[in-house]
């Protein structure tokens, strides 16, 4: 067994992370930038960073992922990376011809003190940015926060650097996507359409990272929020930020720059969070909820009622990114399940506050931890001490699941060994239905596997 190296006794560790439940900022910035149409993400750092991020995203989506790098050398690290970035901008526009270059920093360029705002301004002043093209940036040092922070920073950068307030309002609502899958973004757009609300969703990686086979390799796939749409967000009636950690910073930026009021919601994962999203969006767009959406909701409730006996009291360990696992925890409680251990590598006090709100009344004994020391090693130790019936998390959970012989559902980022996440949403009522189906299948398959012959049931 692979993780037999995990000890049961939980000891305070001085500075060591074992089996991280997070990764670094730049990959989040790269993912966010891919959700802008015609945008080439650019990593301002060593070649390796860019290569690792592209590889990880490629493994997760099984799609080509394009991004450029400043290719730092020893010289750049001594004299600063300005020359590299200016050269890169020139090269990229002349060869790869994107509409936008979205530059993010790395630990290396941050530490040597490169100022992306100043360098991109210089690029503009020096005429290196062709007419009608854009260079945007976000500061994403790897030694602060996590991949989620990097996503949030780039999305905020997109909002801040594109939004324009023309003075005349448009009848549209901004929806700022927290870190979610292309399938989720597609579902948000579908729900909004069904509600009859005009929205601008950003970023939007649908039709970018779930592209069809066409016989050609399209450098800039057809999806992604367009520059015109992004510029118009400054005139929208309001913004809904889906996720307090990964989406809210962009909403704040829009409010600051263009005075667009906002509301922060949980990502619509599960019944209640979807209810809140639908209510907020129908209110913001001043529409009534159509029967079809009410029926979708009814179907989800119906299935939960049908299968409640199999869900009741099941003990769950989960790990992942805060904006996803906060509403998931709430949903598990609504399914009458028992989340017992929760871990997120992303630091920040919002996580604790929101988890407390959900858990204090309904499950005060649930253990949860985020930030430094909240890694999969700790989660595994907790599982050894207080066993669970189900584990939910990204692909790396498979080691723990195997070691503890626990059913496992893949949820979050990265998923390197299964497909589905890019095509089937987890958000909305249909996403809730998919989650319930996955949970039930995992639990019932296990029950079947372990059942004595005389108790092996046909009808469940």
């Amino acid at each position, binding site marked *: 067994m*692979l993780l037999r*190296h995990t000890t049961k006794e939980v000891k305070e*560790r001085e*500075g*060591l*992370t074992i*089996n*991280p439940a997070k*990764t*670094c*900022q*730049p*990959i989040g910035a790269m993912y966010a930038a891919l959700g802008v149409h015609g945008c*080439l993400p650019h990593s301002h*750092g*060593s*070649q*390796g*960073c860019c*290569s*690792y991020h592209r*590889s*990880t995203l*490629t493994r997760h989506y*099984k799609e*080509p*992922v*394009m*991004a*450029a*790098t*400043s*290719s*730092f050398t*020893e010289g*750049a*690290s001594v004299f600063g990376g300005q020359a*590299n*970035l200016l*050269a*890169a901008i*020139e*090269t990229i526009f*002349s*060869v*790869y*011809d994107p509409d936008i270059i979205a530059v993010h920093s790395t*630990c*290396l360029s941050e*530490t040597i003190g490169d100022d992306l705002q100043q360098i991109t301004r210089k690029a503009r002043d020096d005429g290196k940015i062709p007419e009608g093209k854009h260079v945007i940036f976000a500061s994403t*040092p*790897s*030694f602060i926060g*996590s991949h989620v922070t990097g996503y949030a920073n780039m999305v905020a950068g997109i909002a801040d650097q594109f939004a324009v307030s023309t003075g005349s309002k448009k009848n549209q609502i901004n929806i700022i996507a927290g870190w979610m899958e292309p399938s989720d973004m597609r579902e948000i757009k579908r729900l909004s359409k069904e509600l009859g609300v005009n929205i601008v969703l950003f970023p939007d990686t649908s039709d970018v990272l779930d592209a069809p*086979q*066409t*016989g*050609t*390799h399209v*450098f800039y796939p057809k999806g992604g929020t367009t520059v015109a749409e992004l510029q118009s967000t400054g005139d929208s009636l309001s913004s809904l930020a889906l996720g307090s950690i990964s989406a809210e910073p962009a909403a704040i930026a829009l409010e600051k720059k263009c005075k667009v009021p906002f509301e922060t919601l949980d990502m619509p994962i599960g019944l209640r969070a979807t209810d809140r999203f639908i209510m907020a969006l129908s209110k913001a767009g001043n529409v009534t909820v159509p029967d079809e959406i009410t029926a979708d909701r009814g179907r989800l409730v119906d299935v939960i009622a049908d299968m409640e006996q199999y869900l009741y009291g099941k003990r769950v360990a989960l790990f992942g990114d805060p904006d996803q696992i906060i509403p998931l925890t709430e949903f598990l409680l609504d399914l009458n399940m028992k989340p017992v251990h929760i871990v997120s590598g992303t630091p920040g006090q919002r996580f604790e506050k929101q988890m407390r709100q959900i858990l204090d009344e309904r499950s005060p004994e649930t253990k949860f931890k985020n930030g430094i020391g909240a890694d999969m090693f700790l989660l595994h130790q907790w599982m050894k001490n207080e066993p669970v019936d189900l584990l939910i998390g990204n692909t790396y959970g498979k080691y723990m699941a195997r070691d503890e012989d626990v059913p496992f559902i893949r949820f979050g980022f990265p998923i390197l060994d299964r497909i589905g996440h890019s095509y089937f949403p987890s958000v909305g009522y249909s996403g809730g239905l998919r989650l319930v189906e996955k949970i039930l299948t995992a639990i019932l398959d296990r029950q079947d596997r372990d059942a004595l012959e005389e108790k092996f049931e046909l009808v469940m």
Partner: protein
Amino acid sequence: MEHIGILEGREKQVFEKKIGAELSDIACETSSLSGSVSQRACVFCGSRVVLYPVADAIHIVHGPIGCAAYTWDIRGAVSSGPELHRLSFSTDLQEMDVIYGGEKKLYLSLIELIEQYKPKAAFIYSTCIVGLIGDDIDAVCKKVAAETGIPVLPVHSEGFKGTKKDGYKAACFALMKLIGTGSTEGISKLSINILGEFNLAGEAWIIRKYYERMGIEVVSTLTGDGRIDAVKRAHGASLNVVQCSGSMTSLAKDMEEKYGIPYIRVSYFGIEDMSKSLYDVALHFPDHPEIMEAAKQVVSEEVKKLYPELQKFKKALTGKKAAIYVGGAFKTFSLIKALRSIGMSVVLAGSQTGNKDDYKRLKEMCDEGTVIVDDSNPVELSKFILEKEADLLIGGVKERPIAFKLGIGFCDHNHERKIPLAGFVGMYNFALEVYQSVMSPVWQFAPRKGGNR
């Protein structure tokens, strides 16, 4: 996409073999142009892949979390025993550490880890930022080694300090410190080390068995299914057999200089090169003709089994065209030969890290019209694949979806191979994989190569 030409400044890294074309030197071993969508990685990546398979050591990445997270168990280097290498250890440097230094954190992490896991050794990888903030990791390693009594080896793999190849060198430098510290008692004169074989999908086990069938003792495999004790006594072998020449030739050279152990370069891919790698070892022991006899016996037995099996693939694949873009150039040579043996020609050949000699040899090997590239990018690869009408791309993780989008077959000859491709059995697996992918029914449904159905 047609309007995208070869990246300006890259003309010297692309060459098309044509009659009358000057065989000028291709530009290589340079860092990528700023702003390119390079498929290359960094120094750290090079060190990490070389040392990673040492399974009874702890590997701790000193830096922010990303470098550890992205290299956590992504390479299928199999171990027959301990699996410490498959865990991810990081000092997870934070802003305060960047300001005040991370030496203390590293020290405490090492002490904790060594106490907990009792490893045979520890490798400490320094990342970009460690090179900037100036942590003296050598001093920390020395201190921890003295306190714990195990070798604690710094690996100077700051990402920006060169290319992936410099990372190989840094890894070899660390290994060199271990070699020579163990006892060579009982090692046969008829012995070798296998260098540059990382036991992906269990390949080192296959190769090792061939040599053992010849009566050769394999002292140490560097680093596939690696053990610290075996590395320590590697200097007791009579010959170093180096495959994946990019990564471990420097170690072979150092061992030759320090211990007088000669080395040969081999490749285990394809019938021709695999056989040669057995014969070349036998040739090194001319006083023992029985070894050459045994080698011939191994080859004959294996080829007898393999040859008829390959014919069905060859029949289907004859006339199909392949594009190769892999990490090391040496691998490309073997792949060209292996593809020819199943009836396929090569229309594009390239590598991320080849040197001048490699490219010269490539030019000699390739057919007229073959495009040769160094440090290529997706635009270029797609362009040449379409122009040259390739049916197959051989590459790594980032190339796979490009091949599939273009509607051609793909074979992973990199980290993510799931079945052994080395050895005689590997040639069968390789042919099968190529056959499966190129002849897959899915392409019937795909608008292949941009055309209509």
